[in-house]
């Protein structure tokens, strides 16, 4: 019993692959995840742990199998979640486009035969969230058509950088204390 949904993205396959394999950042964008942590990685295999948002509760542990820029597959190995397997397929297209499909496979259970809510996440909503996260890494997505860019706040590996009317400011953390 599987549910599949797809979305087109205005970027090469490398970007969704890097977002999908960044297991420490899932809480930033995937709606059902409250916090996430990469437990271990060895070659194309990783183990990750997600803490789920209410009404779901507890931890969801998955083993993750990767095929660079093509596929990210999760198999549930722990947690009270009805998902047995979740597969992100990435297809790189012409002129820097890509297509991402998400397939959710339900755990087999006698409850599947009852008219009860499935408790499965919505694949379409997960993909829309991925699309929003992807747009954060695409400069053109935020530029808009025309107009003058007056403020731009970006996070880089060196820290936060703010552009105000074309002038660059590098932000440093303020010491702890009362807010001004």
């Amino acid at each position, binding site marked *: 019993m599987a549910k599949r949904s797809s979305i087109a993205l205005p970027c090469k396959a490398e970007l969704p692959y890097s977002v999908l394999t960044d297991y420490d950042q899932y809480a930033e964008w995937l709606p059902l995840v409250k916090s996430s942590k990469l437990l271990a990685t060895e070659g194309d295999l990783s183990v990750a742990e997600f803490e789920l948002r209410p009404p779901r509760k507890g931890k969801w542990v998955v083993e993750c199998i990767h095929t660079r820029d093509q596929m990210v597959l999760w198999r549930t*190995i722990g947690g009270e979640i009805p998902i047995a397997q979740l597969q992100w397929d990435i297809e790189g297209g012409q002129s820097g486009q890509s297509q991402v499909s998400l397939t959710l496979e339900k755990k087999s259970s006698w409850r599947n035969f009852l008219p009860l809510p499935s408790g499965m996440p919505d694949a379409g909503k997960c993909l829309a969230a991925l699309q929003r996260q*992807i747009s*954060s890494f695409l400069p053109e997505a935020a530029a808009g058509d025309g*107009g003058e860019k007056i403020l*731009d706040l*970006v*996070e880089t590996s060196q820290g936060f950088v703010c552009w105000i009317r074309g002038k660059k400011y590098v932000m440093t953390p303020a010491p702890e204390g009362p807010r001004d």
Partner: protein
Amino acid sequence: MIKSAIQVQAPKNNVYTILTDFSRYKEWVPGCESCAVTSQSGNVCDTQIVINSMKRMEMGLRFDSEPVHSIKFRMTKGKELKAYAGTYRLMDSADGLGTVVLAELDIDAGFMVPKFMVDKICNKLLDDTGTALRKYISSAPMKAAPSPAAEKAPSPEAKRRPVKRLLSVVQTAVGYKIWVMGQTYTVKSEQG
């Protein structure tokens, strides 16, 4: 096949040493009454093990180890089960503080025992084994010997991320377009 991730605060070398010290299994493996090594050839070790948890079982178990990385085991003799096999795969934890053991267990108890019940038993066995392993390691700390891979592993912070946009404000003829974390909001001036 049931899987479980067991997090242990000890280096991979130490965890591997404990998991391959079969004659000391009775000190920590839940329900293990005895475990005797009957023969050994290289990394393959045959044992005679007695486990008394829900039922007392005596079986021959063959362990096939790949040093520091994995330990496979399967039943070679025994009357109570049709098959009993599994793997411990050892991975350096991403935080550099220990080891993640990816444990797999597959039991075939015959057609008289339904699969959901066997799966439940496997889950419990793996959970109990994880708890017992953590307890054993914490009670008998070994001399820390970090595995070479752990020493080489880059810290999570070292991972380079592409530039990520958080907020963008564009002034247009009719007002402002505000882009926040992938969503655009339009603020129009009152005159517009």
